[in-house]
């Protein structure tokens, strides 16, 4: 099995799908000549030429909207939003147009487009270039929202996203682009959308994570030496309730580890669902480890604390397992104030 970096896995997935299907094309800023600001389109311009691999003017609304139009004609555009924040200027096209066309045409129209965007903190990019923002799109029926967590999921979910008949948003944690991993390529490497991945089986507790926090959760579990089941949610919307609830029924305990502010974070949905639908199985209150309700700080040492750290997740895991009590977040313990 070859090993590759996450950005190479993305470029490989795009190339493989472009070879397999002539209707796949990619648009974005600095993706052709420069091969992507994060090197996620290496080799594409050379192999597929400037009609299928386009450097666009700086107008996210234009290329998102154009992708919607092209997709209704049967093209499979993959567009790149350099930083997910820039989706802000294109949101109408995605949420109010792409997500609704099938519904508004009684199923006659399909919008098989993919929106790729880099997300998350950890690279010192400041509060306007460090958010995950999955909640901007995850509450819109009609959209499928996916977050990759390693090289295999980057490859496998990207190819599945391109083949999907509906608009799919693939969020790519920026800190992972340089991370290496083994990748099964080809048809065998394609992963299903809307299915969570159990990345570590275990019996004592269910830990649900997504994107960057999957690796953090795995490391924390290893550091605590607990028999935890770690689930990578992978597709946030519509999410795989069955895998999560089955696990919670087995373990009786649930922690969600999120890279998103406490208020309105995706884990709230997971915890609420477990509380209602697995209530009888729960032996302790399920809870969430999140970021505090503040913008992502610029200073590196603050940013490093902001995202749940391995040490802090391990601390909370231990407290929870030892006492059954929900631990306090670090910012409460340390008296972070305004």
């Amino acid at each position, binding site marked *: 099995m070859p090993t590759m970096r996450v950005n190479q896995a993305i470029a490989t997935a795009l190339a493989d799908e472009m070879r397999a299907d002539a209707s796949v094309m990619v648009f974005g*800023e*600095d993706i052709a*000549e*420069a*091969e992507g*600001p994060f090197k996620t389109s290496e080799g594409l311009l050379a192999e597929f030429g400037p009609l299928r691999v386009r*450097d*666009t*003017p*700086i*107008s996210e*609304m*234009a290329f998102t909207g154009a992708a919607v139009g092209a997709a209704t004609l049967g093209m499979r555009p993959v567009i790149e939003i350099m930083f997910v*924040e*820039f989706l*802000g*200027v294109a949101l109408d096209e995605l949420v109010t147009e792409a997500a609704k066309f099938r519904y508004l045409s009684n199923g006659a129209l399909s919008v098989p487009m993919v929106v790729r965007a880099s997300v998350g903190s950890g690279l*010192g990019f*400041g*509060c*306007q*270039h460090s958010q995950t923002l999955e909640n901007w799109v995850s509450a819109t029926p009609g959209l499928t929202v996916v977050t990759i967590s390693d090289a295999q999921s980057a490859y496998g979910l990207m190819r599945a996203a391109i083949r999907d008949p509906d608009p799919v948003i693939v969020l790519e944690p920026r800190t992972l682009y340089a991370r290496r991993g083994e990748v099964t390529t080809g048809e065998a490497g394609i992963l299903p959308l809307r299915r969570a991945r159990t990345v570590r089986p275990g019996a004592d*507790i269910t830990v649900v994570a997504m994107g960057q926090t999957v690796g953090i959760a795995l490391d924390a579990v290893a550091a605590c030496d607990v028999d935890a089941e770690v689930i990578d949610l992978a597709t946030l919307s519509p999410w795989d309730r069955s895998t999560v609830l089955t696990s919670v*029924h*087995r*373990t*009786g*305990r649930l922690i969600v580890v999120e890279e998103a502010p406490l*208020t309105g974070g995706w884990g709230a949905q997971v915890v609420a669902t477990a509380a209602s639908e*697995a209530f*009888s*199985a*729960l*032996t*302790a*209150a399920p809870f969430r480890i999140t970021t*505090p*309700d*503040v*913008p992502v*700080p*610029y*200073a*590196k*040492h*603050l940013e490093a*604390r*902001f995202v749940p750290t391995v040490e802090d997740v391990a601390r909370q895991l231990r407290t929870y397992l*030892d*006492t*059954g*009590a*929900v631990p306090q977040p670090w*910012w*409460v313990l*340390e*008296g*972070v*104030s*305004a």
Partner: protein
Amino acid sequence: MPPTWTGEPCDGASGPPIQVLDPSGQFTADPRFPVDLDDGDLLGLHRDMVLVRQLDTTATALQQQGELGLWASSRGQEAIGVGLAAAVAPSDMVFPSYREHALAWCRGVGISGILGLFRGITNGGWDPAAVGLAVPSIVIGAQVLHAVGYAMGQQLDGGGEATAVVFGDGASSQGDTLEAMVWAASFEAPVVLLCINNGWAISVPAARQSRIPLAQRARGFGFPGLRVDGNDVLAMYAVARAALDYARTGGPVLIEAVTYRMAAHTTADDDMRYRTRAEVDQWQERDPISRLTAHLVDCGLLDDGALAELQHESQRLAEAVRHEVRTMPMPDVRTLGRHAYASDTRASLVPAGVPVAPPAPAVDSAVRATALSAAHG
């Protein structure tokens, strides 16, 4: 002296960029755009450009040494910020892009304000109201709308103030920028829209953003456009001055300043992946500083002694920059919640007075077994 430029749409938007100082330093007056500056002013423009270049060079080196997270170089574009800053009144407002260190310097933002941001120890480098310079926008085009709104406020105030906003050739394609132009025109906002056409938007050449000189777009929106040599600080000053005077009562003006981004997009970019060294070298000959130096030497305003003194001052600045950057205080983690809202955010971060739920029993296999059999019947 009142500007003799008419503000007619065709007066200055087409043809070669407006220039009064050619690359060799030869001065040719343009009667439409008088350069009403005295000797001291001219020397001041020169000094500012030299110091900003030094700041930029030092910051680039500091970034390479790992002392700054990132640096967006303004090398070769100094004349634009310096010329504009000389043309705006202290009470006018300026909305910068992330590359306008010259503007920040000239508006009085100190070293720590400019570099603290790039060292990542602060989220904001200066108080916009105090220095008349807004927070730099890094989401492309957003600031153009902010500037129009601000200018509309100035219009309501009725004090004759104006706003200038700086954005790039790449930003000219953003919906925000184009909608801002519609608004500026519809409400006759006293705003000067200064587009710095430096040839590149990261790796994308300016030709991908516009088929015509950007200044000509103004006509379609119904206001004047001006195309100026952005490497000629005197033309920059004179054109910005005329445009601001016009804008105070006449509404928006678009200026396209033609220049070249001499460095890579930022220190994180490798420009040799998409452009040639030869192209960069060509622009070296049109350097904004050397042409003003030549002119001032020609006029007898600068001699070897004065140039050596300026060289010293510039070295002292470099030392001060290095020292200030290395000694910047790191923010305490307890300040994390500060400035997310106007009022104390403690309430949302640290819930007070909420009863703490009694702990559930520790994990116990008997309990789990019961739960399991209950769940699965």
